[in-house]
């Protein structure tokens, strides 16, 4: 009888989940300086679904295309979700992408000042943030080479989606944002270990 009780207790304890890990990337506390000159942290949009990506201001083609893509996503959202969603673009190039330079770009792209933010962060934090977001980049003689990933964060800052900006149609990304906007915050990470392992 006692053996059976111990076995039952043991299996109950095994089944209990470990204390939940905090998967919010806002715990990085990445310092950002935005196009208004404000000093904020990565978690500035906590409470909203956020689309986040990385870029640099003097990028000739891919970055303007990335911003256009994000605008298409923005425009594909229904009004209530649109009011809720936030778009955060962080530069790899803090040296050149000063608040003034970001402000010029911001104006040139004509994006909504209440819901969009361009920001930069110093090199070591840019490297760390890119690594967390899964964005590869490197300095080359005339700027940067980088891929075009867009990452979706839920209201608590957990990564719940990652999209290649040019492979995935804007409507599909918008649909995912609507899902996340309608959900309770997720505690589970979006990406498990890579497939096949």
């Amino acid at each position, binding site marked *: 009888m006692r053996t059976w009780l111990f076995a039952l207790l043991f299996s109950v304890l095994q089944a209990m989940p*470990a*204390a939940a*890990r*905090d*998967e*919010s*990337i806002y*715990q990085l506390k990445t310092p950002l300086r935005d196009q208004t000159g404000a000093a904020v942290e990565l978690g500035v949009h906590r409470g909203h679904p956020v689309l986040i990506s990385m870029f640099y201001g003097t*990028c000739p*083609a*891919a*970055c303007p295309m990335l911003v256009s893509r994000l605008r298409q996503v923005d425009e594909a959202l229904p009004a209530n979700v649109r009011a809720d969603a936030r778009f955060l673009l962080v530069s790899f190039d803090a040296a050149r992408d000063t608040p003034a330079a970001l402000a010029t770009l911001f104006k040139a792209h004509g994006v909504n000042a209440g819901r969009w933010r361009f920001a930069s962060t110093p090199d070591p934090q840019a*490297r*760390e943030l890119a*690594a*967390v977001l*899964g964005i*590869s*980049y*490197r300095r*080359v*003689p*005339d*700027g940067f*080479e*980088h*891929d*075009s990933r867009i990452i979706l964060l839920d209201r608590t800052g957990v*990564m719940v989606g990652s999209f290649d900006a040019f492979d995935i149609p804007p409507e599909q990304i918008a649909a995912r944002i609507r899902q996340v906007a309608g959900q309770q915050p997720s505690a589970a*990470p979006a*990406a*498990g*270990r*890579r*497939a096949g392992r």
Partner: protein
Amino acid sequence: MRSVALIVAALLALTANAQAGHGFSSMARVGPAQFRPLYTPTGAPKEVALPAFLLDRLPVTNADFLAFVEANPRWKRTQLPRFLADEGYLSHWATETRLGPEAPAHAPVTHVSWFAAKAYCEWRGKRLPTENEWELAAAASETEPDGRTSAAWRERILSWYARPLPKVLPDVGAGAPNYWGLRDLHGLVWEWVLDFNATFGSDGDGAKDAGLRFCAGSSLGADVKDDYASFMRYAFRSSLEARFTESSLGFRCAADVRESP
């Protein structure tokens, strides 16, 4: 009063010994050098001027990393978010704070992500080496700063890569020191570098050709076509993402050269 002085002296001596394994005295000075990496981006010069730097003579061990985890509990394997390390993180340790038989104290620590390696080095007041720094250090044979032109040396490294990895890794320090006084850069574990995906980018979804993922899409040409071992290292590093852990992947730390210690 004299006994107090003796006790203080003894304590200082003890802490000095405790630091010997991972303080700056356990590092070697490498370079400066004009280094020709295996890969350079198109349009960039083929040689890179690397200033002198310090590099750990040995990989970071399980015991070293345990000290870090004990001092920084958020890095325990039960605490760390999955975006900072995958589920293999420190999986060879018996518990979150006990090494156990599969993790000998003086074996190189493995199953650590780039984030964990970077955090350890920063805790030591150091940093991860860049890819160019590591490759410069590893290009040295026992007698020459650049052993890469020797076919025999390249063959020896390639033969090490062909050996299967033992389940329990041997202790660090068994290999002969190279020209710079560094051991185990080859033949033990792969090692993280700061800019591990700088050359090809991370092939995260496995479907795209390396190099085409970048918006500028420049092609890279290998400088020495015979140096297959170096190519393997670049290819391995480019397959990594920062949160990955591997049984064969550890690290060592670097530091800038300071005028006074």
